[in-house]
């Protein structure tokens, strides 16, 4: 049943400073509201229990993409459309652009934000696997200051994050690491307009046939988007031969614990995750 709209508050602060004061003065009372592509769905379904929101959408301080030699830094309100339009992201971070292009249709991509995708904390979200594979860092701000932390480790459990109630996610930055093999694949019921059953993001830095470094990330196979570190350890530093691929596959099958739910089954997710890992490694070898 639809929510009772007059029961909700959505206040628009004049600046980021005012927004941080508001959420800092009454921690937990106010939650951020960005593009609305997740929260409005819950509102319509009558499943939005929290009542008081800060409208951060107009805050210019949280917008824009900045490029330096070391990093590409994205404001938390960067939309999926803006991600796809950025030349540097298209060239160096194609997995993020692909994730953005496979999230909803254009009307959603014009409104949905990277920051929202991160703090909404769905284990089935499309951009977090790419962000984790790129070893992104995030900036949390509050009225008492700002802190940067690695995105790896930010999600601690289902919808749980190492973020205080007085903090906002302000920026996400991606280290520009040079040429790497990249592999992103979202598997859903259909090729387009579907929530993922399994989402895979992998990067590998090759030295001839040896894997100098590797990151393997899976979505929809655990309560959080999962960096598969045991699997990475089974690959890192090795010659990328058939034995390594086999060992990596076996390690992954032990490392992830997908469940049966409305979108898929544990068995299917395990099999697809393993197949995607093998495809990633075989592709990286060629």
């Amino acid at each position, binding site marked *: 049943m639809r929510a009772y709209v007059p029961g909700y508050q959505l206040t628009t602060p004049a600046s980021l400073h005012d927004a941080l004061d508001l959420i800092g003065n009454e921690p937990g009372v106010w939650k951020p509201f960005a593009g609305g592509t997740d929260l409005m*769905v819950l509102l319509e379904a009558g499943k939005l229990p929290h009542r008081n929101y800060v409208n951060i959408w107009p805050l210019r301080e949280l917008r824009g993409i900045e490029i330096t030699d070391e990093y590409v830094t994205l404001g938390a309100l960067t939309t999926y*459309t803006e991600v796809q339009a950025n030349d540097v992201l298209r060239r160096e971070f194609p997995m993020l652009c692909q994730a953005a292009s496979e999230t909803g249709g*254009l*009307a959603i991509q014009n409104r949905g934000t990277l920051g929202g995708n991160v703090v909404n904390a769905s284990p089935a979200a499309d951009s977090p696997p790419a962000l984790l594979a790129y070893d992104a860092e995030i900036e949390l701000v509050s009225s008492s200051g700002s802190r940067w932390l690695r995105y790896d480790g930010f999600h601690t459990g289902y919808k749980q994050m190492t973020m205080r109630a007085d903090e906002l996610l302000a920026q996400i930055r991606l280290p520009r690491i040079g040429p790497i093999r990249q592999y992103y694949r979202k598997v859903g019921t259909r090729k387009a*307009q579907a929530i993922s059953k399994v989402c895979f993001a992998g990067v590998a830095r090759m030295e001839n046939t040896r894997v100098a470094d590797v990151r393997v990330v899976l979505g929809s196979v655990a309560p959080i988007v999962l960096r598969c570190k045991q699997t990475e350890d089974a690959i890192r530093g090795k010659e990328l031969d058939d034995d390594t691929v086999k060992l990596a596959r076996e390690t992954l099958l032990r490392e992830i614990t997908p469940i049966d739910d409305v979108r898929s089954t544990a068995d299917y997710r395990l099999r697809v995750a393993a197949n995607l890992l093998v495809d990633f490694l075989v592709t990286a070898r060629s």
Partner: protein
Amino acid sequence: MTKTEIELTVNGESHKLEVFPMARLLDVLREELHLTGTKEGCGEGECGACTVKLDGQIVNSCLVPIAQVNGADITTIEGVANGDQLHAVQQAFIDHGGAQCGICTPGMIQAAVDLLERNPSPTEADIRTGLAGNLCRCTGYMKIFESVVQACQK
């Protein structure tokens, strides 16, 4: 909770409204401004029937709370034609049977007009991507697709 004052421009006309801040843009357009051309399909951003243009970009008006459009410029399906002169996309939908029950049509036309404004010579793949967020349960999509192809040739 209290209502808030919102100013916005819809189809070139300025409005000042007292509304609850979480009211959906879709409902304000239909119930306050009586612009009932914008349809509600799913109410959860899947179907695209409620698509409007907001500051130059298409959005699902069911997912936009009214507090986020203060000062914005909005075009609904009522504002797509130029007076009595239909937009080429609208005429093409008539010529090719692109509309059947009509519920998806306002959103389909908004998405197609937006596509042609961004890309006057779209490929077939571009057209499919441009219409991807809009669901139709009548036509099987081909007549809609052909309508957009025809509109490109004008």
